[in-house]
């Protein structure tokens, strides 16, 4: 199928276990083969020309759109500009000479490599390299000319913060890595890149700080990544789902963020970042439950304020998980819990409502979910209209039509708003659908049912692990040292150690001397 030619002297030494298919020395054949391999795709650009002084046929090949045109021109013209004889140089007559010469020259501008193998050649083309093929040579010079249109670094859209960096990740893996590197200027920040996805050949990098990240977690992650055999990785969500240990758990065990400062902070705590090409969402593992309720801003504000805000978030968690359930169980089973005047009020409101409280709650919750889901997919202007119609008009009308009671509308909307107070969107999603199950139990068993569900939920969460780290740490297992940055955040000066279990070695964040100096300032 492919013309093989072993005339070139140095082909034998490049024998690798899997059979290599080598580039032929015939230029025309090579070009034809490239066209064939890519199915004559129109975005493959082949520019043929002849080096005048040697009459050697040369061709430059690249894929339009993946390369930066200016870089291509620079590379090609730089490589080819040897028409005049320079002093002390041999005259370039044969292809071999030309090749040597070009190589010498071309390599001087860096990022150029020699390619002998077809597989490498195709890979190079697809990642935006320009290849120069020369008649009579079984090698190609590849120049890194990747470029083309990428989104520029812009403001975070899903994890907005009032204070703190406005940068967010883009779809380009190189940009993303550089954004993190700029924040941690340490040679110990290590990056390992691999290609995952049989068809997509997506670049996936894992980034960690050597000496802080736990070796065990790192090994585990690497083996998990190596075990992935799928044809496509289009978003980091693919990787997330493929490496999660508890596939049937409602809780996410891998954290994701689009903020470089968040990634940097997590790397410094000993976690590992997984960056996937083509998505601005970077994964962070191992993740703990508490992490999903912490925002980067917590560290930028004063500790007392951020501690209170964290407590507020946990309150919101409780409301969004148990809010409607507690209301229903109070109405159905524990009327004595409600102060009498309020109870009379509620009863009179519910007088005209034909449904039991449970059905009422489900109607409103489902309506709320529909409005929310519809709002996400719509353009922002229409989205607002939908939320006004949905929220205001529908809520008001449902009450007036006697389908639900006003109190239920209040409960459902406070629940809905509370669920948005969770900084991590994927956690908020899990909580939202768990809520339905809890409402169901509460309708039949009241508070007792809720507490039974809570036992099961907590036991379940305690059984989860993320890369070997218990999900509920530092609460269960309880780690006193790590309490400084869990439910509340203590002042930065007192956060001397990194969270245990995440980073077991090199645990000290600051020397006690430095800490003292910090205290004095």
């Amino acid at each position, binding site marked *: 199928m492919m013309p093989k030619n072993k005339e070139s002297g140095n082909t034998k030494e490049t024998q690798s276990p899997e059979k290599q298919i080598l580039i032929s020395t015939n230029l025309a054949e090579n070009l034809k083969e490239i066209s064939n391999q890519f199915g004559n795709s129109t975005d493959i650009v082949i520019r043929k020309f002849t080096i005048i002084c040697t009459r050697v046929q040369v061709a430059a090949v690249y894929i339009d759109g993946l390369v930066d045109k200016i870089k291509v021109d620079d590379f090609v013209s730089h490589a080819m500009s040897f028409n005049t004889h320079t002093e002390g140089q041999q005259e370039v007559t044969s292809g071999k000479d030309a090749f040597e010469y070009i190589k010498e020259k071309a390599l001087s501008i860096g990022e150029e490599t020699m390619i002998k193998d077809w597989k490498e050649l195709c890979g190079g083309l697809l990642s935006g390299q320009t290849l120069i093929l020369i008649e009579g040579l079984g090698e190609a010079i590849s120049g890194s000319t990747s470029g083309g249109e990428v989104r520029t670094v812009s403001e975070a859209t899903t994890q907005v913060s009032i204070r703190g960096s406005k940068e967010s990740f883009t779809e380009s893996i190189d940009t993303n890595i550089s954004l993190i590197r700029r924040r941690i200027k340490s040679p110990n920040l290590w990056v390992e890149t691999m290609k995952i996805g049989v068809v997509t050949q997506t670049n996936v990098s894992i980034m960690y700080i050597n000496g802080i990240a736990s070796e065990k977690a790192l090994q585990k992650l690497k083996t998990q990544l190596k075990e992935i055999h799928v044809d496509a990785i289009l978003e980091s969500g693919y990787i997330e789902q493929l490496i999660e240990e508890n596939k049937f758990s409602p809780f996410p065990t891998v954290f994701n963020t689009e903020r470089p400062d968040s990634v940097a902070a997590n790397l410094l705590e000993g976690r590992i970042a997984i960056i996937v090409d083509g998505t601005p969402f970077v994964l962070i593992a191992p993740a703990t439950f508490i992490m999903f309720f912490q925002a980067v801003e917590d560290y930028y504000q004063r500790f007392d304020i951020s501690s209170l805000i964290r407590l507020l978030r946990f309150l919101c968690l409780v409301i969004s998980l148990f809010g409607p359930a507690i209301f229903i169980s109070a109405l159905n*089973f*524990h009327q*004595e*819990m409600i*102060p009498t005047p309020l109870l009379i009020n509620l009863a009179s409101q519910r007088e005209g409502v034909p449904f039991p409280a449970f059905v009422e709650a489900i109607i409103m919750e489902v309506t709320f979910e529909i409005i929310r889901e519809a709002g996400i997919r719509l353009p922002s202007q229409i989205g607002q209209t939908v939320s006004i119609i949905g929220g205001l008009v529908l809520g008001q009308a449902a009450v007036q039509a006697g389908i639900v009671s006003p109190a239920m509308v209040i409960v459902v909307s406070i629940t809905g708003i509370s669920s948005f107070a969770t900084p991590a969107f994927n956690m908020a999603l899990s909580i939202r659908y768990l809520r339905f199950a809890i409402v169901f139990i509460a309708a039949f*068993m*009241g*508070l*007792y*049912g809720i*507490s*039974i569900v809570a*036992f*099961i939920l*907590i*036991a*379940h969460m*305690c*059984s989860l692990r993320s890369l070997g780290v*218990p999900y*509920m740490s530092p*609460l*269960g*297992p*309880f780690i006193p040292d790590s309490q400084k940055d869990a439910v509340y955040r203590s002042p930065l000066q007192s956060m001397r150690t990194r969270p245990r279990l995440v980073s077991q070695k090199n645990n000290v964040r600051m020397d006690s001397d430095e800490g003292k100096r910090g205290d004095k300032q």
Partner: protein
Amino acid sequence: MRKEVISSYQLFAMIVLFEFGTALVVPIGLESGHAVWVSILMALPGGIILYLIYNYLYLEFPTMNISGYTQKILGKYIGWTLSLLYIPVLLFNGSRNLREAGDLLIAASYDQTPVFIINSMMVIAVMYTLYKGIEVFARSAEIYFFVIILMGLICNFVVIAAGLVDLKNLFPLHSKDWKDALASAYPNILIFPFGELVCFTTIFPHFNKSHKARRAGVMAIVLSGLLLCFTHAIEIAVLGENIYSRSTFPIFTTITLVNLANFIQRLDALVILALVVGVFFKMSIYCYAVMSVTADLFKVREIRNLTLPVGIVVLFSSIVSAESYPVHMDEGKVFLKYILPILCAVIPLLLVIVHYIRKKFGLYR
């Protein structure tokens, strides 16, 4: 499978929750009248001694549970038979806890719900947790430890703040009261709740730092003893001796009296939650003890496989063991007086003595 380990915090939390269990809710040591709180304090040293006995046996045989070392100390046949006794007794005790929780719930607000449904919900939660393993169970205990301490603080605070406490109900203590207190402390309160810690002999082998078990355990017992004493003292101070001893669940009656600024009233739900949490942990530990002993005696390799049978037996025996709550309490008195002391105190003490003699005279092969 990986060996499951528990830390000293987890042991501490488990012991406290276990001690609270039902003891927080049901009246204990009725004979001593208004001096119950004194008897709890009196029983405390005994409880610590009992714990030290279990702990001594654990330190001598760090990898075995109670049935394991009973067989080692008393020989295969006597030991095996004696250990077999633990299974029905612990099962029955676990099911009694379940029954108490079910009855309180029905009395409180579930008069329409069959007791079977209520109990089976609890058993499902227990089975799920135990199926996940003792490590997971210990971690949830740590989390619930804070929950129950928080609830306890709130309850006690509102009761005191509402001005219900009348110290005249606690004093004076005459010499007869002291005698009564001592009489109910030994053996009643010593066994329930302190002697029931015998269950922890099956949990000790999972402990990761064996030398810390003693300290964590003793601290937990002291803390839970003091809190129990405090709670029961408050109950008596609020209700008076008469109502305290007659009401089924004195803490429940106490809390219903709270009316703070016409706003905070009827905090019954908190008490129910405290009871549910306590019973959940106590029952789970009983079930785990049964599973552990059974697995050891009948050579069951995967202890998790016993979750379902044990859970179902506990569920049914909680319903069939007594036709009504008074009968249940009567049974409890007999059980507490004649059966539990043997298993909780006599056998472990016997084991310690025999072990000591055999060790001293080199009678182990």
